[in-house]
C-alpha cells in the first residue's frame, strides 16, 4: 500500500485535540514528481503540520487539530503526480458527545397490540451514531433484585419508543425498566421504573349513545339528557370508573365534569343543563379501584335538551 493514514483516535469528544499522520512508503517515491505529502481536509481546516523523511526512506506527515469542533472531517493524504493530485488514503474523523441519560421514560400497557409500550426523551444530539435499548427484568421484591430476564427491546432506527410483547411480560408482577443509550464515547442509563404492566394499562375510550325516546317512558325533564355508554369491549373483564364532560355546543362555556360514574349501567340521566340547548358530551374511563391510566376522551355525542 502506497500511503496510509493513522489517527490518534477515530472518534473523539468535540473540542478535543486530534493527531493524524500519513506515511508514504518507498515504493511510491519513484513515481511522483514532487516528493511531498499534501493533506486535503473536508471541511477545510488548517492544522499544524510536521513533515519528515524517515531513515528507511518513507515520508511521514503529521497534522494536529488542537480543538476539533466539526462532527465530521474527511482527511485525504495526497501526492503530486504530473499535474494531478493523487489521493493515496482517506480517513474520517468523527467528534461528538457521549450520550446523556435518557429521561421522561414512561410506559403504557396497550391491550390492543397486547404489548407494553415505553417511550423516552433521547436527550440532545450527540453527533455520533447512538443506539438506545429498552432493558427490563422481572422482579418479585419491588425491583430490588432480578428474578427473570427479559430480552432487550431494540427500537427501530431513530425511534424513541419500544414495545415489549405480551409473551415476555407477567402482567401482574413488578418489572424494572430503563433505557440505555450507547455510542463510541460512552454509555448512560435512564432512571429505572418499577411497575406491573397492568397497573399502567390504558383503555380505549368508551362509546356514548343517546337513549331513543321509547313509548311508555316519560321524556326527560327540561334541561336533562338521557344517555347510555358502553366501555371498550376487550376491557369488559377490568373493573373501571368513568367520567363524563359536557359543554354547550355554542358559546364560550368550558367543560363541566361528572366524575366517578360506574362503567356499566343501563342508562343515565344528566340534569341541571340549560333547556333546549345543544350539548357536546365526551366520556373517558380508567381501571379502578386498581391503578391504570385514563383512556382518551371518547368521540363527541351531540344532544339537545328538551324545551321548558
Amino acid at each position: 500500500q502506497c500511503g496510509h493514514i493513522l489517527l490518534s483516535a477515530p472518534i473523539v469528544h468535540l473540542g478535543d485535540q486530534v493527531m493524524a499522520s500519513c506515511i508514504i512508503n518507498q515504493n511510491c517515491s519513484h513515481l511522483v514528481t514532487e516528493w511531498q505529502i499534501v493533506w486535503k481536509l473536508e471541511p477545510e481546516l488548517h492544522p499544524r503540520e510536521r513533515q519528515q523523511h524517515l531513515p528507511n526512506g518513507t515520508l511521514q506527515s503529521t497534522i494536529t487539530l488542537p480543538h476539533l469542533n466539526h462532527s465530521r472531517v474527511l482527511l485525504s493524504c495526497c501526492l503530486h503526480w504530473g499535474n494531478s493530485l493523487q489521493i493515496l488514503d482517506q480517513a474520517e474523523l468523527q467528534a461528538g458527545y457521549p450520550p446523556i441519560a435518557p429521561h421522561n421514560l414512561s410506559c403504557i400497557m396497550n391491550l390492543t397490540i397486547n404489548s407494553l409500550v415505553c417511550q423516552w426523551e433521547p436527550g440532545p444530539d450527540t453527533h455520533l451514531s447512538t443506539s438506545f435499548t429498552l432493558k427490563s427484568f422481572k422482579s418479585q421484591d419491588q425491583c430490588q433484585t432480578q428474578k427473570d430476564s427479559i430480552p432487550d427491546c431494540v427500537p427501530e432506527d431513530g425511534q424513541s419508543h419500544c414495545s415489549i410483547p405480551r409473551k415476555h411480560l407477567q402482567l401482574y408482577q413488578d418489572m424494572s425498566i430503563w433505557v440505555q443509550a450507547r455510542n463510541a464515547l460512552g454509555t448512560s442509563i435512564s432512571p429505572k421504573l418499577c411497575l406491573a404492566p397492568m397497573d399502567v394499562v390504558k383503555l380505549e375510550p368508551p362509546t356514548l349513545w343517546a337513549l331513543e325516546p321509547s313509548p311508555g317512558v316519560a321524556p326527560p325533564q327540561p334541561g336533562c339528557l338521557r344517555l347510555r355508554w358502553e366501555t371498550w369491549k376487550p376491557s369488559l373483564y377490568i373493573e373501571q370508573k368513568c367520567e363524563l364532560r359536557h359543554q354547550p355546543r355554542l358559546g364560550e362555556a368550558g367543560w363541566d365534569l361528572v366524575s366517578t360514574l360506574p362503567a356499566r349501567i343501563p342508562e343515565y340521566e344528566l340534569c341541571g343543563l340549560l333547556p333546549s340547548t345543544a350539548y357536546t358530551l365526551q366520556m373517558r374511563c380508567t381501571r379502578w379501584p386498581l391503578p391504570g391510566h385514563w383512556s382518551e376522551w371518547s368521540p363527541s355525542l351531540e344532544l339537545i335538551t328538551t324545551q321548558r
Partner: protein
Amino acid sequence: TPLGPARSLPQGFLLKCLEQVRKIQADGAELQERLCAAHKLCHPEELVLLGHSLGIPQAPLSSCSSQSLQLTSCLDQLHSGLFLYEGLLQALAGISPELAPTLDTLQLDITDFATNIWLQMEDLGVAPAVQPTQGTMPTFTSAFQRRAGGVLVASKLQSFLELAYRVLRYLAEP
C-alpha cells in the same frame, strides 16, 4: 394450620385475582366459541365418554367451598389447579393454526395467575417447600382428540374458575 381470618389476604391481591379470573374466563370462552365454530364441537356433554378414555383430570377445589373454607389449602388447590391446566393446555399444542393464538393467550394468563397465587402464598409463608411438578398428561393422538380435548379442558377450566371466582369474591367482601 389453616390461615387466620380471610382479612390476611391483601385487598389489592384479591382484586387482581378477580380481574385475572374474569380475563381467563373470557379467554376460555373464546377458545370454546372457536372450537364450536370451526369444528362443530360445541357441547362438552357429547365428549364425556371420550374424556374418560383420554383421562382428562379435574382439578379439585374442595378446600375453597364456602361451607368449609380452609384458606391455605384453598390457595394451594387454586395454584395446583392452575398449574394442571397449564399442563393440559400445553398438551393441546398443535391444536390448529387458527386456535394457536387463543391457546397461547390462555396459557400466558393462567401462568400469570398461578404465579401471583404462589407469590402471595410465599408472602404469607404458607407456600409448599417445592413447586408442584406436572403429572402425566393425556396424550392426544389425533387432531380430533386435540380439539375434543380442547373442549373438555376449556369446560372443566370454566367450572374451576367459577368456583375460584366465588371464593375470591367472598374473600374480597369488605
